[in-house]
Structure formats: C-alpha cells, structure tokens
C-alpha cells in the first residue's frame, strides 16, 4: 500500500496504419430552438484508427460533447436533428441504423465514459449489478460468468479487493474509484472505440494521473481506439497521438500532437496555448509576465457571424476574414487548419 508506481508515458506515436474503425463525415447536429437553429456541430469530419488516441480540445460550447453524444446517438431528437453527415463504424453508417441495431452497438462496440462518475452510476444498484448488466445484455453471459467477467474487469482497472467492491454501492467509493468502475463498465464488452468525455476533470490531479495511466495501459493492452475529449491541453499533450481543435461547432485545426504543439496554424489554437500559465525558471524569481488572453467570448451558436467565427476575437483578423468562412486546408504535411491568414502568422514561439 505504501509503494508508488512508476510508469513511463508512451512517447507520441505516428498514426497507426490500417483501416479506420470510426469515420465521421460532415456531421451536422443542429438543435431547433425558439431562438433559432443552434448549430452545435457544423460539418465535422474525422477518422479514428484502432489503438489510436484522438484528443478533441475546445472550450465550453465548442461542440465537443455534442459530437460524442451524436456518435452514441444519445442526443434527444427533437430538438436535435442530424442535418447531414455520416458516422461510419466499421463501414456501417450509424445514422442509418434503427433503435435496436444502435442498442447492440452502444455500450458494446462503442462505449463512453463521462465527466461525473457519480451521476452516471445508478445509486441504488451495487457495483456488481451495474457491471454485469451490460455483459449479460450484450454478450449473453449467464449470471455466474458475468460475475467472473465483472471481477476480471475490476482487476483490469486495478481496483483492490474486487470481490468486496462488487457488493458495494457507488456512494461507498471515492471519486477515483468510481471513475475506475465507469471505465470497467465501459470496457466490459471489449469495445473497439471508447469515448472519454472529460474523464478526469472532476478528479484531483494525483487521481487524474492514475486514471490517465490506466487509459494508456488499456489502449496498449486491448488496442482500444480512444476519443479523449478535454479542455486541458496538458492532458492532451500527455495522452493524444493526434489532436483535433474545435471552435463554435467546427474543427478549426487537426494534426499529430507534436506537430500541433510545435507549429499551431490557427490563431485560436495559439491563443489557447498561450493562455496556459507556464512560468520559466527565471520568471519565478521575478514578477510573472501577463498571461496572454483571448479577448471576448465564444459567439452564440444561433447567431454566428457570416465569416470566420473566430474573427471577433482574433489578433490577426483582416477584413476578408469576416466575409467567408475559411476552408479547412492542409497547411503542412498531415496538418489542416481553417484560417485565411495562417500563412502570414508570425513564427510560433512556444
């Protein structure tokens, strides 16, 4: 109980070869509201290879959570509707599946973990009941076999005394322990895609480190593809192979993790990176410099400006930026961004 575990975080890896397991193409998730159409996700495309960790970054309201709920088809329709797009999982378009077919995929082949483990666990069922439910349903296991599987899953996520924990209720577990149970539940049916929506945001930093280590271990062991949604650039830098940056419902930049952090091409990505407090050794001795701010706030999704949605907050804005939304274009090998002015941006100084 007193030892610490040392783990070595895997260095960033090239995108694995092979067919993507999940492809999202031109996804538009719109909400019809009294105040007009809210374009929560507006023309998003990306793909995910087996064993890959894709980081999705953005601030509140950028559409990152609606993207994951759209893939799971957990957005309430109405008010939401899919105005266009396809979500292909192993070649099949999930948006064309019926309720029953989708149920066979959700929680089985694609699973999800949420930010707040307490509100996603059922408070009146034991950990064991909740862990066995999915495997009984999807894998048609008997009670005894499901129980064995549940114990195995708790072992996999390093929960001590799994036998005892199976009998406990969620409130008897700590926050970190609950998130481990959530991960165990999500992995019970050996999914090929795991969507983790802010999985460590509610956790303390030492517990966050444990959960991130666990997710990495699972990716290595089970080759699960992971979509890691977070607002924390530190978490992305430590975990992701590739990063997608979202702003106001759209992808504004995407690249391998090292490329993105070293040569960000979109002023929004740059703004995010620059606003993280990070002192150098010398700055700790003297007065710290002002943090770089992104002025203003995210525009309202039902009244987006006609041109680039970031124009009002952008330090490099030109007149033409307000006329048309910039296309997502390759700016460097394997690096796309949606910015009219990216070729004129100054050299990036991290």
């Amino acid at each position: 109980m007193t030892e610490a575990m040392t783990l070595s975080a895997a260095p960033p890896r090239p995108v694995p070869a092979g067919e993507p397991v999940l492809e999202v193409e031109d996804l538009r998730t719109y909400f019809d509201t009294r105040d007009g159409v809210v374009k929560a996700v507006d023309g998003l495309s990306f793909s995910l290879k087996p064993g890959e960790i894709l980081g999705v970054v953005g601030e509140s309201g950028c559409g990152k959570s609606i993207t994951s709920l759209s893939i799971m088809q957990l957005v309430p329709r109405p008010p939401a509707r899919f105005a266009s797009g396809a979500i292909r999982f192993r070649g099949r378009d999930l948006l064309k599946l019926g309720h029953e077919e989708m149920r066979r995929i959700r929680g089985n082949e694609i699973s999800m973990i949420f930010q707040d483990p307490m509100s996603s666990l059922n408070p009146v069922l034991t950990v064991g009941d909740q862990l066995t439910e999915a495997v009984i349903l999807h894998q048609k296991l008997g009670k005894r076999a499901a129980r064995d599987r549940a114990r195995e899953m708790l072992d996999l996520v390093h929960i001590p005394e799994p036998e005892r924990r199976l009998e406990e209720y969620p409130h008897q577990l700590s926050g970190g322990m609950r998130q481990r149970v959530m991960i165990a539940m999500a992995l019970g049916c050996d999914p090929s895609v795991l969507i983790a929506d802010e999985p460590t945001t509610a956790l303390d930093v030492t517990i966050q480190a444990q959960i991130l280590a666990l997710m990495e271990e699972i990716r290595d062991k089970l080759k699960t593809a992971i979509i890691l949604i977070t607002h924390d650039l530190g978490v992305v830098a430590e975990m992701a192979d590739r990063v997608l940056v979202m702003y106001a419902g759209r992808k504004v930049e995407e690249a391998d993790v090292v490329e993105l952090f070293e040569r960000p091409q979109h002023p929004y990505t740059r703004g995010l990176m620059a606003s993280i407090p990070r002192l150098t050794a010398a700055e700790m001795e003297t007065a710290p410099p002002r943090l770089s701010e992104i002025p203003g706030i995210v525009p309202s999704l039902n009244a987006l400006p006609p041109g680039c949605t970031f124009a009002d907050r952008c330090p490099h804005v030109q007149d033409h930026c307000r006329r048309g939304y910039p296309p997502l274009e390759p700016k460097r090998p394997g690096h796309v961004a949606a910015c009219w002015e990216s070729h004129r941006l100054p050299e990036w100084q991290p």
Partner: protein
Amino acid sequence: MTETLLEVEGLKKHFPIHGGLLNREQARVYAVDGVSFTVRRGETLGIVGESGCGKSTLGKTILKLIEPTEGAIRLKGRDITRLSRREMLPHRREMQVIFQDPYASLNQRMRVQDIVAEPLGNFDTGSRAERLEKVAALFAKVGLRLEVMHRYPHEFSGGQRQRLGIARALALNPELIIADEPVSALDVSVQAQVINLMMDLQGEFDLSYLFIAHDLAVVQHISHRIGVMYLGRVVELTDKASLFRHPQHPYTEALLASVPVPDPRRRKKRTVLKGDVPSPVKPPKGCHFNTRCPYAVERCFHESPALREVAPGHWAACHLR
C-alpha cells in the same frame, strides 16, 4: 520588512458528527487541523491541495463565516478569533471574499449594479447616487461596460460574472481578499483574463490575496509564496521558486509530478501516487500522508511531523527532512 496583514496560528476547525440515540458526538471531521502562516501586505499566498484537504474550510474560518475550533486569527495585529458577528463588522471591510462559482454566488433577482453596491449600502452613509457613482468606477476598474450595470446576472458569461464578484469584493477597499478557486469554473482563455485582472488590481491597490486553488499552474503564476495542504494540515510552505525547484515534502513532489505538462515532447516517467486521500474523519495516526508516501518509515506511523524550517524561509512537515 513588509507589514504582516494576516496571521493564522494553530488554526483548527473540527466538525462534530452527531448521531445515535442520544445524538451524541460520534466522530469529528478534522477539516483544518493546526494551520499556521502569515500573509504580508501586497503579497499573494497561494494555498493548494486536493479536494477534502481543508483549503476551503480554512478560507471560511479565516473569514469567520464559520467559527474556529481552536487557534488564533490576527488581522493587522488584532485578534479576531473570538469576535461576535457584530464585533466582526468593522473588520469585514478589511477582508473580502471571491467565490468559485460565479453562478451561485450572485443573487439572480438583483440587478448587477445593486449586487456590487450592496456592501457599500451595508457600511456607507453615502447617498444612493454616490454609491452608484462608486459602482460605475468599479465596473470600469474590472473591465465591465457601464451599459450593463442595470442588467441581471443571467445575462453575463462566466468570466463577466467573476468580474462582478471581484467588483463586489473591491467595493469597500479591502486590504485582504480571500479568493476560493476564483478561476476554476472558467475556460482557460477567460481564466487568463481574470488572473491578469486580479494581478493588475493587486498592483494598483496594494492588495493581499489568500488564493485558494487546486490548479498548480495557476497558483504558481499568481502567488509569491505557496502553502501545500494535505488532510487539514500545511505540509510545506515557501516561496514559489523554492517550491517548484526543490520540493521538500513527498506529497508536494508527487503533486508536481502529477500535473500534465502541455508539451508532448516532455512526456516523462512519472511517479503516480497510489491510493486515495484518507477520510478526514479518520486521518491516519502520525503523518497524515503515511498511507501514500513512498518513503514512509516506522516513525511516520506514530509521530506527527511538525512544520519545520528546513532551509531559510522553506518550511516542511516531514520526518525525513
């Protein structure tokens, strides 16, 4: 030598847990369990720690929003520990608070100008017109447009609400502001705006901050000195450069190692602490960190380490230092 503004000595806050047939005290939550430090004028003392370490209770106890169990709180040399609510009133002007949640801490039914003016009304004899003039000046100070003064809180974004919270805290020209997680509900770009604002105001008004937060990067940026709390106690206290360069307590070391670095080329071997923080109802005997400490020796399990000066100005509570 800068003047000491706030002095906290051996401060304890225990919450009794009652229960059973006779509703007797069954146990205690040792939320704050013997904390001492000083805050100098114009200084920011950061307090970091994870949930349940007692940092928020510490803030509320110093503000006397809850009564301390033991110890002393001295504000500008005067002992305020045992003052009644009425006796506290004049001291409230000197010590104000900014809360974490800008959604919960502003009355939804009041116009924002009245929210910011409320402390003035509680103390000032000035006319309503004079108060509104003062409020307008405060709005300008915190970067809010005057046109929005008559609006209601729901019309404001998270960052703007936190500016309102800051304006309200500044209304009485306090000398000390206790800020409890003031930026943790905000997006990173907006967080930067609020941190810059707080630092500007500190320079302008020579304010002192007790800045309570869990985010080490934020605390590192804004603080002059930092105290690290674990299970109700301060385990390390020093200036920020020493803390980040030569952490002396194994918990601080682990905490620093756990923070993800926003640089993918610096993915490194990390030491990850095992286990969870024990319950403050039953803190372990001896050093509170002994259940998770990789270096714990026999002594750590029965003897509680005192906060000692292990290097000039650098205090740590560890038997091994």
